[in-house]
């Protein structure tokens, strides 16, 4: 391998980190308020709900699945919190809502396992419609508000760090430990790479698939809690099409849609990168109509680089085989 080629490969391997650095430098040059601690706390706080949901999505993507229903799960959970658990203390209400998210994820998981051979895309598309319908029925398509203790939670910080970031860090650490340090985590990667081989190796594939959808539902509920504590009210479009930024964050972080490749570290980078770009555009007083254009262009280039990397690696492996 020549030196130039090795540098190119290094660049390709660390593409998300390089994209992040470029974004930071560009916005720091354009605005002097951008590169401050306060602004970064702000970015991470705003990114936390998408990041938490994207961590759950990462588990599903690693098994080569997809969950389109996360936005709807988020809305149902918040509607239940606001309408049914309004009088409960936060410490009781939050675990109940998290359990509800887990249960809704279990419904997805049940159908994915039972209807093997059918793409999870279509199953979670169905549950997206059903759950959104249920939430609209519960709220009567009106705005719902959460009680004061939850709203004040959105403003609380411990040790100078906002509550949302603690939540985000907690979810991230647990997810990282599960994926990297447990047999279950290795089973997820194995199932994503080759379900048939994983089954032959004695892995209970249906159980792993069921579990990742439960985890994704749980994360969607937690993301909903973080989001509602920040905005205090949910309209009938709460969580609508949230699946798109969530999937984008995971893919931007290097998790493959074909399973078996990626991880949660990349995912949080992806989520924070998207939010950083939006924040930077606000700071530099860019035309608001340009926000979606810039964000989607960055995702496009990240995926482009990722796919070129896979191709180059494939090409190199092929050459080795021929030499032998």
């Amino acid at each position, binding site marked *: 391998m020549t030196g130039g080629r090795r540098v190119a490969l290094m660049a390709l391997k660390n593409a998300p980190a390089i994209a992040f650095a470029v974004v930071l430098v560009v916005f720091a040059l354009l605005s002097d308020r951008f590169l401050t601690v306060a602004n970064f706390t702000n970015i991470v706080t705003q990114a936390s709900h998408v990041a938490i949901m994207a961590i759950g999505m990462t588990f599903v993507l690693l098994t080569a699945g997809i969950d389109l229903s996360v936005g709807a799960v988020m809305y149902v959970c918040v509607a239940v919190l606001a309408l049914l658990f309004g009088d409960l203390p936060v410490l009781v209400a939050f675990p109940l809502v998290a359990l509800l998210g887990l249960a809704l994820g279990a419904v997805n998981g049940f159908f994915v396992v039972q209807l093997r051979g059918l793409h999870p895309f279509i199953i979670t598309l169905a549950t997206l419609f059903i759950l959104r*319908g249920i939430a609209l029925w519960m709220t009567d398509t009106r705005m719902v508000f959460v009680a004061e203790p939850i709203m004040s939670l959105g403003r609380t910080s411990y040790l100078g760090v906002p509550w949302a970031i603690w939540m985000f860090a907690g979810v991230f650490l647990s997810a990282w430990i599960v994926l990297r340090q447990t047999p279950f985590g290795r089973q997820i990667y194995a199932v994503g790479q080759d379900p048939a081989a994983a089954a032959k190796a004695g892995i209970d594939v249906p159980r792993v698939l069921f579990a990742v959808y439960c985890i994704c539902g749980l994360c969607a509920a937690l993301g909903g809690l973080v989001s509602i504590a920040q905005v205090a009210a949910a309209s009938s479009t709460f969580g609508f099409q949230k699946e798109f930024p969530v999937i984008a964050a995971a893919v931007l972080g290097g998790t493959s*849609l074909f399973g078996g490749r990626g991880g949660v570290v990349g995912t949080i980078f992806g989520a924070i990168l998207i939010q950083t770009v939006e924040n930077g555009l606000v700071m530099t007083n860019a035309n608001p*109509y340009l926000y979606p254009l810039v964000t989607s262009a960055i995702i496009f280039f990240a995926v482009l680089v990722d796919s070129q990397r896979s191709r180059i690696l494939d090409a190199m492996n092929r050459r080795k085989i021929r030499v032998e």
Partner: protein
Amino acid sequence: MADRAVSESGRARPRAAMAPWLERLVLSEYLVFYLTAVYFLIVWPIVPQIASLSSLYNMATDLLPLLVVAIGQTFVLIVAGIDLSVTSIIALASVVGASVMTADGGYLAGSPFAVPAGIVTFLAVGGLVGWFNGWCCTRLGMPPIIVTLVGLMFLSGVAIWYTTGHTETSSIAGLPRSFVVIGQGRAHGVPHALWVALAVGIAAHLLLRHTVFGRWLFAIGINRKAAEVSGVPVDKAILWAFVISGVCAAISSILYTGRLETGTPVMGERILLDIIAAVVIGGTSLSGGKGKIVWTLGGVLFLVVIDTSLKLLGMSLFVVFAVKGAVILFAAIIDAMRQRIVQRG
């Protein structure tokens, strides 16, 4: 081999075999038409006005643009791709096309070529976006779901931004009469849009069933590697599948824009999942290699009949959502049952 399949599925699901008539019904490729008919007959006594002329006419006008864009989607699904950018193509083509023709400050306002040029603009926008999608998925080897997801976000942003450059309001009005008539006019009670949809449908059917190109698409969907080895120009065929999807979305945009008499950047925003659901309910597989234009017609018909009936029954938005979801899930379960029956032999 067959024995093993039997014993395996027998062990996994110890359940009595289905009645033969039920099995034949489930296996029928026109199941969705029977279901539509049964549903219609059940709803008819409850809301008699569903069979009224105006209701049927409304259903037809709802159905036609949706059908055209769903036909394009069928091509992409057959090669195991997916095109999520269609609704943004509809929106972008709508505003760009309208900006050419509009009487208030259009590029060709008042010119006799305004309408033909406008239509060409619609088709060009759809074709170019489709070509770009296909190019990214083949030459750059990117996954279709992400390419078109980014296209969905990016193009809808472009459509809104483009509109702000051409008008103070949120949409471009003042379209010439001879254009609007394509979307909403009718002769002897038959809407012009029907002829457009019919032409697209027949062309698509012939292309899929009676040309080498159609064979290529199915071969790629069933086994891409095998197709490549057998000499199918895989990249070229996939590229054209995306171009067809883009052009179909543009034609559908012409119909929608004509119906609304304005070009608006939020057009089609909410029908993306309906389009994919309709194609899949019809029986086209998301994993490629299986699909028919007639099935897509069935899927679109089914969704439109359900939508109309729920509206006539005075159901609120949430019921419409929940029923649509249940229908998609039902279609998914039927598909899984089919696969089991086929496997059992």
